[in-house]
């Protein structure tokens, strides 16, 4: 997590720059199958992390946003996808975003839009792919190259989530005219992608730096 590891990290700090050890751990981590990386590890910490993520999403969606279009706002809630994805993986991020959106609908009073909740879950899944291309925020690994890949996945994820999935579901669920949905979708794609890139990348570097001290330690289960 964000804390705790620092204590042990301090003691063995002198081996911090030994690249061999770092590489060894990297290759060990790579052995984890793609499937398990996608699903994430569903232990108690993950469950609590997702819950806190969903609560944070709900609160930020309601208070931390600036309205730019009907039912669409430039909201910092989108950062929750990034954090939960970085710490726990894509599926936990998707679950957190889905329930976060349902909760924000519940307390926000603009009606229930499950099409958007599912869209947000799809987006969070893409954003949360971080561990798959080697960005291990927990171990302090986040390079410029990974930041570029991250930016690309964010844009692709937003396009798929709100350009394809949400309009399709809106049509299926509500058989509603899509004019306004398209407007909302474009506002959401541009708004979310810019929030996730402009705020997300510095935040990921920050978190990685915060955890970097423990690069040469691996956690025992």
């Amino acid at each position, binding site marked *: *997590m*964000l*804390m*705790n590891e620092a204590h042990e990290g301090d003691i063995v700090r002198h081996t911090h720059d030994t690249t061999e050890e770092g590489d060894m751990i990297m290759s060990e981590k790579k052995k984890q199958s793609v499937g398990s990386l996608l699903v994430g590890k*569903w*232990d*108690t*910490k993950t*469950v*609590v*992390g*997702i*819950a*806190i993520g*969903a*609560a*944070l999403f*709900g*609160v*930020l969606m309601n*208070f*931390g*946003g*600036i309205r730019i*279009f*009907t*039912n669409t706002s*430039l909201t*910092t809630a989108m*950062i929750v996808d990034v*954090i939960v994805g970085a*710490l726990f993986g894509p599926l936990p991020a998707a*679950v*957190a975003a889905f*329930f*976060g959106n349902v*909760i924000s*609908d*519940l*307390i926000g*009073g*603009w*009606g*229930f839009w*499950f099409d958007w909740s599912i869209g947000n879950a799809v987006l969070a899944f893409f954003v949360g792919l971080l561990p798959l291309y080697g960005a291990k925020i927990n171990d302090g690994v986040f390079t410029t190259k990974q930041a570029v890949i991250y930016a690309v996945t964010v844009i692709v994820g937003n396009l798929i989530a709100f350009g394809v999935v949400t309009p399709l579901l809106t049509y299926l*669920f*509500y*058989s*509603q*005219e899509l*004019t*306004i949905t398209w*407007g909302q979708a474009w506002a959401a794609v541009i708004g979310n992608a810019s929030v996730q890139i402009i*705020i997300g990348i510095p*935040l990921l570097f*920050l978190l990685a730096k915060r955890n970097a001290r423990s690069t040469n330690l691996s956690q025992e289960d």
Partner: protein
Amino acid sequence: MNTKRLFINVKPGKTFLDRLTGKTKVRLFLILILLLIQTWDIRLILPLLLLFITALISLKPDWKKVWGVLGFIILVNLFNLFLMWLVEPDYGLGVVGGSTVLARLSRFYIITAETMWYFFVRFTKFMATFILSLVFISSITPSEMAAGLYSIKIPYKICTIVSLAFRYIPDITRDFHNIKISIQARGMELDSKKTGLITRLKQNVLILAPLIITSFDRVGNIANAMDLRGFGKGKKRTYYSEHEDTDGDRILRPVILILVVVFVVFVVRGFIHPPVYQVWCPWIS
């Protein structure tokens, strides 16, 4: 918008709705929400709205809080409708099926009776949805919610996620406001009337970093406490908050069944005979 906006209870209350089991509350809420989402028929929405208002009154809520929230929601919804009208003034043509012009402001901006009717239905629908959510949130505790979700065969880890998220919303909202106030105390202007869009965005980001750190710092503590109590060891679990059925539960069980049947009939009918126009209107058809 203050911290009192949220109504999440931790202790169960004493009214009829409060005393129901979590199972009944969650099932009833889910089926009513599904029914409300799929319908655009005012003949169904209006009675439901009246029913939900009665339910809200029966809960004896703090009316000052309720009016505060309702006022805000009404404004937001009206504003949304206005934006919809700005984008497409003749919206009613597609969904209601007519375009009786009442007033013409310019070549593009017209006010039609059908659009207004659609807006009225939409507004009623969202108010009904909101009051239902309000009744649901104020009558359920996070633990009952987990028990209710578990009773409809949702894996208990997901149930725990939902109930924990509900449990922590008031805490996180409080942190959010505390951080906002402390930032303001250092001389930052957060009033939306006095600052521009870019500054406000920057300030939202300033709140974000401490909020994320304080929120996720909790994770370790909560997870340890849950691990110590053996969370996640068994395949099944039971809930302390789930008590035996009361009379109310026994009465509501057939009601829920009937609602499920009504919902299925509506959906199937919608598939077999899709209505030409989505919204029923008294002076058309």
